[in-house]
């Protein structure tokens, strides 16, 4: 059963340099009990999509339903079944972890007693005992993020939205959060998460929607997406960069696409990995080209993104991060 359904969503913002089409006809469908990742660089429209689905903004056009509820016309009903956590840990710094969670419970109208009981359960589950009784001010980013995530889980929501849940966290906190999210999903929650990290989408989700320019440009499981750009890839690293031209020709002969050359590394996608590797190595040996390294690998989501959009996801993301830091 489809629990999240969005059709033809558009949203245009005015900016100094002209209109920005944050959403340009986005379609999305998520089956109940699954995890869908919206993958794309900053500015692709991921956050705008989540904001529409969590009733924060209204789309210019299109419809969005969660569990059969029209989120545009009946936001209050939608809010009763969702939990949402944004890019920035939305906690009140002056309240303790417990007070934050209790307040959220009360505002979900759980009643005072249930809200307190639930807050304590979450404090224990998320190992927040330390933050439980002290104001959040002064706690680390990872700890705040955990309190924020716990806030999204106060009602064990039917549908959970996480917008870039691990952005800005150190690798250790990121792994810890992945662990928590994986466990949640085992409990049957439907999760829509956004990320600009390919690894994260690969690790956490059943299904990935690649977003660029406010639209879904590809959709499927991680394996399906990888299959779209061919099977294996053969990669050779040369001892001498001067051989790159000759090596490129040999790889082109056995590959099913145009080889890419980056300094001493030449790479091509192939249909039958092991066989192609054998031929490539044999031809390179006959041409007397010395190798530093050779092998084959499965394509990564980064390859998918490059193929689909013409630019790399992570590069774009880090570039945008740098720009944002400059702006601040």
């Amino acid at each position: 059963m489809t629990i999240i359904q969005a059709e033809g969503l558009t949203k245009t913002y005015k900016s100094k340099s002209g209109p920005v089409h944050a959403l340009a006809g986005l379609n999305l469908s998520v089956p109940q009990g699954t995890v869908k990742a919206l993958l794309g660089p900053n500015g692709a429209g991921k956050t705008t999509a989540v904001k529409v689905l969590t009733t924060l903004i209204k789309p210019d056009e299109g419809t969005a339903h969660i569990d059969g509820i029209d989120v545009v016309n009946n936001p209050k009903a939608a809010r009763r079944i969702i939990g949402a956590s944004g890019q920035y840990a939305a906690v009140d710094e002056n309240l303790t972890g417990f007070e934050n969670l209790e307040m959220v419970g009360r505002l979900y109208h759980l009643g005072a007693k249930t809200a307190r009981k639930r807050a304590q359960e979450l404090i224990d589950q998320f190992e927040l005992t330390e933050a439980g009784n002290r104001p959040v001010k002064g706690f680390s980013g990872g700890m705040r993020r955990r309190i924020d995530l716990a806030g999204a889980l106060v009602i064990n929501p039917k549908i959970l939205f996480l917008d870039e849940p691990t952005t800005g966290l150190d690798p250790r906190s990121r792994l810890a959060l992945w662990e928590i999210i994986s466990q949640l999903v085992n409990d049957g929650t439907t999760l829509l998460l956004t990320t600009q990290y390919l690894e994260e989408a690969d690790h956490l989700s059943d299904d990935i929607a690649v977003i660029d320019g406010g639209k879904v440009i590809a959709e499927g499981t991680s394996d399906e997406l990888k299959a779209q750009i061919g099977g294996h890839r053969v990669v050779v690293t040369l001892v001498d960069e001067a051989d790159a031209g000759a090596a490129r020709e040999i790889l082109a002969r056995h590959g099913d696409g145009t080889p890419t050359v980056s300094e001493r590394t030449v790479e091509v996608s192939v249909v039958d990995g092991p066989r192609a590797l054998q031929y490539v190595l044999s031809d390179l040996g006959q041409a007397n080209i010395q190798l530093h390294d050779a092998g084959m690998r499965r394509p990564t989501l980064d390859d998918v993104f490059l193929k689909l959009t013409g630019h790399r996801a992570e590069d774009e993301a880090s570039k945008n991060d740098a720009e944002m830091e400059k702006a601040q």
Partner: protein
Amino acid sequence: MTAVSQPAYESVGSPLSQLFSDGWIATRRNLIKIRRVPEILVFTILQPIMFVLLFSQVYAGAMNVPDYVNFLMAGIFAQTVIFGSTFSGAAMAQDLKDGIIDRFRTLPMSPAAVLIGRTNGDLVINSISMMIMMGTGWLVGWRVTTSVWGFLGGVAVLLLFSYSFSWVMALLGMSVRSPEVINNASFMILFPLTFISNAFVPIHTLPEVLKNIAEWNPVSALVESARQLFGNTNPDFPEPTAWTLQNPIITVILGIIVMLAIFVPLSVKKFKSISSR
């Protein structure tokens, strides 16, 4: 981590009872903040004591105003509670910046609750400041010469005026989105507004241009109402020429009604559409 069953909803009451309940929860959040943020405590407790003492002791001798302390107190009350209302502006801007508004807006709560909690927070801050100032004023010779009703009426107009002004500031805070800009702008606007009035000097002593501004300044009407209700007016001063100062209590009550009628709906409407970044 273990699976937990979905907590049951408490039966949701009527929209009005929900508004009160959500409003109270949001208010409690701001009450906790008052206790835990030292800057707010300084503003609420120390600054009023300092202002009353500085103005009454330093200026009293130089001012050519008989019984300056009794003249002064309504002015200090008005200035302090108006500045107290600016917390709502800065706090709404800060909440937007921190993203907590997004959290609230994804919860099934009344859309007015966050604003009610915020403006109630200002009301509590201002009530505490008023008590501190009245106590300090009493020590330096301030006396209410009317009745209990006059006293309560004076306190009520000051608090209600500042409460409605909090809604104006809340809308500004949501529109401007920068707590720093709100703080600096209120400083730049409210200082002249409270000083070019009858708050600290008798209006007839001002130069002609300033006198005209001061007479129509709503702060003057507020101060004049409080003076009348507390019995701190000076019969020797010339009659004011502006209608607003001839009928200060009516003016202030009208001002309160107009501010609430315009800015409560506008603020709630704004709240329903805002989101961080």
